[in-house]
């Protein structure tokens, strides 16, 4: 079934081209976008079933054999990320179609969005470090355009910061690639796995740290996170939702993949990752508490929770990595849902400032419920989706005797709850402090247009399903973690 592998990259790219051709008809563009992303979702689910049953599969695009050709690999981690990612991309596209704003006003939205989808899928599927760079660039270039689509003053200002920091990270990535290629003579990831081992100790540790820095910028790890809370809040809310859910997680995926595949236990940047994880959690959540804007609070929460994933990765045990993978799945769904509800809050209240919003639990009870469930899930309240991955991470940390980072993670859970309660009381519970603005839109009984409410409801249901199916999902994450730490299956799939 390796014929499925190129589809998640190819389909969106073909869709993007078609979408430009039919630029005159928004309806045709929407049909193309929705069809392509639904197809990608189906392909991803098929891949996940296939890979979980038969193990890692690989294909050589263009018929050149590894390590020269373009290798595409799917192991369990790839398939999990692809499935969650494509479901998010599809739901957010439906939301964007329903929302007045970005998608309706810009001819290019649909095609750029599909290029973003192709880039995300490419980053997950590639078995070649240079192609990972190309896929990253595809994804980032699309994100530059989506972020600055409105062309207003705030967006251009934030867009500059975002583009400059991403370009810096890309230059570093190219430099790291050049150095790796000089040292080993290959950029194929399965090939690198063996060849990095032959390098001297110091060089290996150097590469490990260099790759953590390169991908740490994309993943927004402390101290490389500062661009995120600055740039994300200015984009249209549908765009921010998909950025919040997916883009940082692509960085986390890259850290996880490169650290486990290339380096053995002696040279992995474990301690560095744990220190960065603790600082990321703490600084991120303190930033969130200081803010007075729903989007900015949520943006700082993204940063803070990247720390949990880094903590799981930094432990480098099966339990730690399994916890991190499960946490990534939960976090993608919860964060995307929260940003979608933030968009609904703005749609109803005309602002995202806490001081200008109030008592929305009366005017929009549906939106209040849609916010509360993922918010409590994010804080890790049982039985919602954040609880099991957090328990898994804390347990893994205790087994590895990393008490400091476990203590920080528990404290940050409490502070997350505080920041969520701050939004809850500011937006839904208390009366507005300043003069509330009149709603710019017809609100209706459900609190928004059906196409904005429906995908949000769907994502809340998915996050409840994650909580309900926590047992099987954790088992799946554990199998994925075993795959990652025992690299032979990956190497054999690529070579064979």
């Amino acid at each position, binding site marked *: 079934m390796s014929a499925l592998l190129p589809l998640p990259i190819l389909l969106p790219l073909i869709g993007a081209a078609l979408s430009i051709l039919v630029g005159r008809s928004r309806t045709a563009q929407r049909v193309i976008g929705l069809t392509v992303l639904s197809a990608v979702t189906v392909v991803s689910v098929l891949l996940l079933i296939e890979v979980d049953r038969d193990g890692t599969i690989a294909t050589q695009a263009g018929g050149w054999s590894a390590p*020269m050709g373009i290798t595409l690999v799917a192991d369990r981690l790839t398939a999990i990320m692809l499935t969650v990612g494509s479901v998010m991309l599809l739901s957010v596209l439906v939301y964007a179609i329903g*929302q*007045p*704003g*970005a998608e309706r*006003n810009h001819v290019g939205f649909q095609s750029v969005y599909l290029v973003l989808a192709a880039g995300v899928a490419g980053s997950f599927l590639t078995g070649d470090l*240079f192609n990972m*760079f*190309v896929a990253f*660039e595809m994804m980032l*270039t699309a994100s*530059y*355009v989506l972020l*600055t689509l*409105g*062309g*207003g*003053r*705030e*967006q*251009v*200002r*934030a*867009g*500059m*910061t975002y*583009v*400059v920091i991403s*370009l*810096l990270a*890309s*230059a*570093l990535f*190219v*430099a790291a*690639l*050049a*150095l790796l*290629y*000089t040292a080993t003579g290959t*950029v194929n990831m399965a090939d690198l796995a063996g060849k990095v081992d032959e390098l001297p100790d110091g060089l290996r540790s150097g590469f490990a740290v260099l790759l953590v820095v390169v991908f740490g910028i994309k993943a927004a790890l402390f101290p490389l996170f500062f661009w995120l809370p*600055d740039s994300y*809040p*200015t984009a*249209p809310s549908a765009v921010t939702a998909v950025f919040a859910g997916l883009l940082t997680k692509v960085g986390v995926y890259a850290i996880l993949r490169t650290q486990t595949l290339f380096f053995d236990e002696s040279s992995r940047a474990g301690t560095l990752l744990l220190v960065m994880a603790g600082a990321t959690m703490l600084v991120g959540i303190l930033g969130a508490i*200081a*803010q*007075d*804007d729903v989007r*900015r609070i949520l943006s700082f929460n993204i940063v803070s929770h990247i720390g949990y994933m880094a903590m799981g990765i930094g432990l480098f045990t099966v339990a730690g990595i399994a916890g991190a993978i499960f946490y990534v799945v939960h976090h993608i769904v919860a964060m995307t849902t929260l940003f979608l509800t933030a968009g609904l809050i*703005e*749609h109803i209240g*005309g*602002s*995202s*400032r806490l*001081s200008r919003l109030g008592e929305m639990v009366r005017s929009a009870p549906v939106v209040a419920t849609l916010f509360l469930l993922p918010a409590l899930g994010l804080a890790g309240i049982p039985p919602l989706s954040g609880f099991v991955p957090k328990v898994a991470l804390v347990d893994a940390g205790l087994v590895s005797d990393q008490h400091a980072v476990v203590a920080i993670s528990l404290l940050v859970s409490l502070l997350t709850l505080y920041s969520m309660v701050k939004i809850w009381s500011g937006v839904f519970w208390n009366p507005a402090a300043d003069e509330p*603005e009149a709603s*710019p839109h017809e609100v209706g009984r459900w609190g928004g247009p059906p196409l904005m409410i429906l995908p949000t409801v769907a994502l809340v249901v998915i996050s409840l399903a994650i909580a309900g199916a926590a047992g099987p999902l954790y088992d799946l994450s554990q199998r994925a973690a075993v795959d990652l730490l025992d690299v032979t299956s990956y190497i054999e799939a690529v070579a064979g």
Partner: protein
Amino acid sequence: MTILLALTAALLFGIGTYLVLQHTLSRILIGLALLSHGANVLLMGSGRRGTPPLIGAGDPDGFADPLAQAFALTAIVISFGVSALLLALSYRSWILTGKDEVEDDVADRAIASGGHHDKEITDEEEWHEEDRLNLDATPEDDEVAGPS
């Protein structure tokens, strides 16, 4: 030869880093371009050198490494495209603000001073209207592109 390439890359990275740390957008742009050139030079230096790698043009053992050149070409094309986008963005920023400088984050300053100022952005037309008003309010003789 490799030392020369390495020194060139180091020089480009050094100047690029200095320029990126400046407060003027055009300098940051040039700095980023130099940084990506540095990375490309590093890529060029990573392969084996030799005769042009054309099949039938000589002894394959003496060929230069074509992979490194392919990498560099790809990286150049990507950085070219993104630099063009960045130039367009900074031109847009200059049109909107009349200055060639990195702006402060309004919400950051508001948090620091304890006050709040923000507006919603679902209605893009109204938003552009306000941008235009801001633009009109900028005096003609406003200092443009002054070094910081």
